[in-house]
Every structure is written in structure tokens, then in C-alpha cells.
């Protein structure tokens, strides 16, 4: 106990543990641990044969953190910015450093805008978004949705009721707005 100098007695000695647990103590010596020391100057260890890598071609003005001196020689090309969300993202990268909350909050807001832009665009395509198949909720019926959750003391069940609201409420709101707009339009025609 902490009120006296000595460490509390251990229940199992190192020899007990070595007998019971495969590999116990194999890396007892920090020298055997591969990330010790944390930093070790050894540029030859990586397989790189360049001092500064050749540069990847920039096919569109690639957004970058203003904390970088220049565009890094290699970068991802997954989803170029487009639409309103793209404009928000480019603004956030151009204006704010990573130290500013505005940078991240603007990017998160752009993510929400992106999702809605993409949903709307999908309705004009041959493959509209489908909240049933794309959320995978069918697995609730095939993979023990109820018995996995209840009577098991899970802490997350306390807030899971929020999930359908967070997922469903914007869709319900969009449907309501569409219905109101449709009715207004119909009334004007009549």
C-alpha cells in the first residue's frame, strides 16, 4: 500500500508467470523492443534511394495545409474537391492553419454539405442512395440485433437511441420539405 515504502507483494513471481504464459519476458530487456529508442538516425534502413523523392504530377490545384512550405512530393488523389463542399474545403485550407478550430470545424461542416450534395446528385443518377442497404441495418435481423444488445450491461445501449435520430432526422426533414414544396407547387398550378 502506498502509505509505506515497499511495493505491495506480487501474487505471482516472474518464474510462475514464465511457466504459465508463452513468451513471458521475451522482450523484458528494452533493447529487444523494436521502437526503443524512439528516434534512431538510420536513413539507410528504409529502402529509400532518394534524398528527396521525385515529385508526383499535380493534376489539379491540390489543396494543402498552409503549415507546409510546398505541396508534398507525393499525395493522395482520392476525391478532388467539387461543388459547394469543395469550395468550403479549399477556403479552409487556404485561410486557416491546423492550429485553428475554424479550420477543422469548417472541414467538418463541408463533410456534412458533401454528404447532402452527393445524396441529391445520386437521385439524378441510375443509382440513388438507399438508406436501407447503405446503412447495413438488415444485419439487425441476420446477426442477432436484439440479443446482442439487451440484458448484457452494455454501456453504449444508453445512447444508441440517438443513432436513428442522427441518421434519420435529416432524411425525414428533407422529405417534409419536399412534400411542402410539392404541395405549394401543386396549389400554384391549380
Amino acid at each position, binding site marked *: 500500500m*502506498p502509505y509505506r515504502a515497499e511495493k*505491495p507483494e506480487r*501474487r505471482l513471481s*516472474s518464474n510462475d508467470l514464465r511457466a504459465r504464459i508463452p*513468451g*513471458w*519476458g*521475451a522482450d*523484458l530487456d528494452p533493447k*529487444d523492443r*523494436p*521502437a526503443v529508442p*524512439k528516434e*534512431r538516425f538510420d*536513413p539507410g534502413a*528504409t*529502402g*529509400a534511394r532518394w*534524398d*528527396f*523523392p*521525385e515529385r*508526383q504530377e499535380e493534376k489539379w490545384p*491540390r489543396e*494543402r*495545409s498552409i503549415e507546409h512550405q510546398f505541396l*508534398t*512530393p*507525393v*499525395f*493522395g488523389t*482520392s*476525391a478532388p*474537391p467539387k461543388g459547394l*463542399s469543395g469550395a468550403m474545403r479549399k477556403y479552409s485550407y487556404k485561410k486557416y492553419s*491546423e492550429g485553428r478550430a475554424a479550420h*477543422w470545424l469548417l*472541414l*467538418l461542416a463541408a*463533410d*456534412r454539405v458533401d*454528404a447532402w*450534395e*452527393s*445524396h441529391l446528385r445520386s437521385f439524378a443518377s441510375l443509382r440513388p*442512395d438507399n438508406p436501407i*442497404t*447503405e*446503412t*447495413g441495418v438488415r*444485419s439487425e435481423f441476420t*446477426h442477432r*440485433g436484439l440479443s*446482442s*444488445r439487451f440484458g448484457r*450491461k*452494455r454501456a453504449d445501449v*444508453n445512447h444508441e437511441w*440517438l443513432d436513428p435520430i442522427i*441518421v434519420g432526422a435529416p432524411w425525414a426533414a428533407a422529405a417534409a420539405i419536399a412534400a411542402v414544396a410539392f404541395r405549394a407547387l401543386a396549389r400554384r398550378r391549380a
Partner: protein
Amino acid sequence: MRAMVYRGPYKVRVEEKDIPPIEHPNDAIVRVTHAAICGSDLHLYHGMMPDTRVGMTFGHEFIGVVEEVGPSVQNLKRGDRVMVPFNVYCGSCYFCARGLYSNCHNVNPNATAVGAIYGYSHTCGGYDGGQAEFVRVPFADVGPSIMPEWMDPEDALLLTDALATGYFGAQLGDIVEGDTVVVFGAGPVGLFAAKSSWLMGAGRVIVIDHLDYRLEKARTFAHAETYNFAEYNDIVVQMKKITDYLGADVAIDAVGAEADGNFTQHVTAAKFKLQGGSPVALNWAIDSVRKGGTISVMGAYGPMFSAVKFGDALNKGLTLRMNQCPVKRQWPRLFEHIKNGYLKPSDIITHRIPLEHIAEGYHIFSAKLDDCIKPVIVPDAS
């Protein structure tokens, strides 16, 4: 090719996409044979990570076969079976030269505070990931390794992140012989951290979670002593009671941004994204460790601020150590441990899901249905 595509929070589907081209002379294109869904993919899936764009393919845990190499690639050729660490890195910058592969400065234009990760939002570089038939692998001479003949492919898959990260987390704890180690979170990384703590000489390993089936795994797979925090009014007091009121020597946070257990923190962070993640587990770690102890953090947190109990950490004189795992640094030693039978990583895999059913895979894992611990995605199963 067929690829998983993000459609917005909680929504993913499989789409037809172009096979990725070589964009840089040291790129390779890899045909994926096994991929996995990771707990940290759920932060993307839940819309918590800034600049996660619709159309992106997730997946930073994958292995496969080299399909094509760029003109400057020397170490790999078509047909090689490779395992790819989740970090994208150049091998030559200030950080890579010092072994900090997860902190590479030459591959992520979108941020300087984090390196690049396959399929992990534009904050981590905007690279498409491996939950697809093909994936672009930059710096093919640096990142991937040819899979040893004797290695089980599913073991290799878990080496690309979960096992390497868990083992790295135990290293960050600076464990000395006989230390009491408490691991928060019994997901894949927590299970591997618990198991690795023994290799480093822990005297006692305790695992905390709220899912009984994961705690069962922590007992059988990782020989740990376990506590379900949902059964205790105050898990911190319980930790003090079982450690003679001293506290653990080392606490490992293997939970990260989605931490449950405190409604307000969870809702502001995981639901409304106003924090870089719910720091419930991290705060429990800070409170449960002894004065002068060490906290190791490998749970993934976003770039935004989080309400962490920094004052307690200061007043207790704690050492806080954290990073993303530099995966390839761990491999030679972990290969030995697997060969010696000390570690059998694929024992934690519970679900094998065809790529076409990935939406169900994400839901099962995210909602923790069907006692899911680790789901693996098989692109050519259908």
C-alpha cells in the same frame, strides 16, 4: 474494379471504380486478397474525422499481390505477395530517417500534425484504401514487405496494424519487470496490447471494457484479469481497490475517440463531433495509474481539442507517451514471436465478410452485433 465507397455518415456501398493508375515512379498497384475493418475506420464511418469525402474508399489494413510496378521500383515485381503497413511514408525525410515512419513529412499535404494513412480521409493525405479489389501503394520500395512463405495470410493481415499497434502500445508503456498494467479497451488493439505486456515482463495485466464477450477473449487469449466497467459505480475506485490503493504502474488507452461510459463526453464527441474524440477512457487511465506512472495512448483521436484531465496528469507526475505505430519497425521482432508461437494474431478474427456485403460488415462491427471482435473483408469471395 469493385470498391467500398463512403456515402456519408453511417452509409457505405460497393461501387464500380477505375483501377488506380501509377501516379509516381515508385508506386505499385496491389490486388487485394484480404482487408480488414478497423475500429478506427468507425471514426470515419461515423463522420468524426474532418475532411472525409464522399466517394473515398476506406481500408488501411490489407495484404495482396503486386499487379503492376512503377519504373523506379526495384524491390518488388509483379506477382509478389506483399503485406502493406497502414502508414504511407517516403523513407527519406527528417522523420523517416529517424524511424518515425508514422510521422512522415513527404506524403500528406493536407496536414503536418499527422502522417499519411491509406483510406483515412484527406486529413491523412487523401489516399484510397484497401477495401477494394486494387489499391495504389506509394513508395513501394519502402512500405511493403514480401510475406514470408510460412506466414498465415490472416496473421499477416493483422500485422498491418492491429497487432503492431497493440505491441507498440505496450512498448510506449515502458514496462519493467513486475509492473501492473491496465489496458482500457478489449478490442483487437487492446487484446494485443495486453498480450504484449506479458512479453515485456508485466507482473499483472488488467483489461477494462463493457462488452462481456470481449472480456472473455481478454481472459482466454491474453491471460488478463478483467473488469466490466458497467458493473461498477466508479471504475477508478475499483482500480484503486484492486491495486492496494496504489494504482497501476502503466495504463494503456486502446479505446480512442468513440469511448463510451460517460454520456456527456460521448455525445459531445462521438455524436456531435465537437471534440477530437471522447476522452473518457483516457481520463480513466489518468485517474487509475499511480503517481509517477506512465500512460500510453494508441487509441485514435481526431485533430480537434478534447477535454482531457491535464491537471491530474501534471499533478501526478505522469509520463504521457503516444503515437501512431511505425508498423514496419515492429515486424522483424513480431515475425519471430509468431514463429515461436508466442502470438497467434488471427485467433481474434470473428467475421469473414465478402466485399459486396461491406455495408452489413460496418453495421455489425459498429453496433457490436453477433459478438464481433474483428471483421475481415474478402474481395473475391463472391
